[in-house]
């Protein structure tokens, strides 16, 4: 995957939400779909490196996983799965239409005034 470029995008998105007076970011909460293939550890590492020297430097990146959901193309039932591809629990086939789990969401930014 391309965690370094995603970290760069994340840094840009955070900067756009901050006010000039926001001194320091202490924590950033993101949700990542399990079907994105994004590796949390790699993203955290890239984020740490890329934020160095900015007011986001040293901030903790908290990642929660968003379960992927699919509608089976064969029997039509909805099911959740972990990873990039899911097997329908009813008929045993691999996933049909992916409904969610391919997203990355910036949830909250925690800012300290000093």
């Amino acid at each position: 995957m391309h965690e370094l470029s995603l970290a760069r995008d994340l840094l840009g998105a955070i900067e756009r939400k901050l006010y000039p007076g926001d001194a320091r970011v202490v924590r950033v909460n993101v949700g990542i779909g399990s079907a994105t293939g994004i590796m949390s550890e790699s993203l955290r590492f890239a984020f740490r490196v890329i934020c160095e020297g900015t007011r986001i430097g040293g901030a903790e990146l908290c990642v929660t996983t968003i379960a992927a959901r699919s509608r089976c193309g064969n029997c039509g039932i909805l099911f959740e799965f972990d990873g990039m591809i899911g097997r329908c629990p009813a008929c045993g086939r691999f996933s049909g239409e992916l409904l969610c789990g391919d997203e990355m969401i910036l949830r909250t930014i925690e800012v300290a005034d000093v």
Partner: protein
Amino acid sequence: MCDTCGCGSPSVRTIDVDERLLALNTAMAEHNRAHLAERKILAVNLMGTPGAGKTALLETTIVKWRAYRRILVIEGDQATDRDSARIAAAGATACQVETGLGCHLDAHQIHDALHHLDPREGDLLFIENVGNLVCPALFDLGERLRVVVTSPTEGADKPLKYPPMFRAAHVVVLNKCDLLPHVPFNLDEWTAYVREINSHARIIKTTALSGDGVGEWLAEIDNLRRSLLVGISV
């Protein structure tokens, strides 16, 4: 205030965002898409394994249409301009993008190439991505149609092994079908795997070198091109 993590400090404020990250690439891809739609240009992103026959399929396409249709090709490769030389020899205008260490084309490279090619209304634009079944699937270029080109020598299980690539495709081309009698490739098994990953994609079987099955491929592209020209959404 807690000495360990700073919790309970009145000086910590939470900004609620809850935004899906529109990555820089996605924003640029949307820009490309709007620009192409405005000029009624059909853009096709050709992805697939190195050696599956993406360039050969393009050469055959160009030879069939060059007399009455303007075709532009953006060629992505890690190194060399060999493919754009082949495209130019077949009779289309090519723009080579050497990605260097990059394993895929991104929307910014397409944006720059579009400015260089300066397409006209009704032109047909093919983007031949870097041969790779992983990374190109994750980068929207602003195309209208995503195509995966694959071949029997790769084995029947590739749709299961590289699901994002096959999931993202509108059309899956199985090229080099003349090899089917000679290689241990179970066509029914492969078709079932494609269908499990992607129930909607059109499957087209071709042999680009001989031209077998290419008619179906040309019809697919041409129907979409016509609908764009008359403003029908499909």
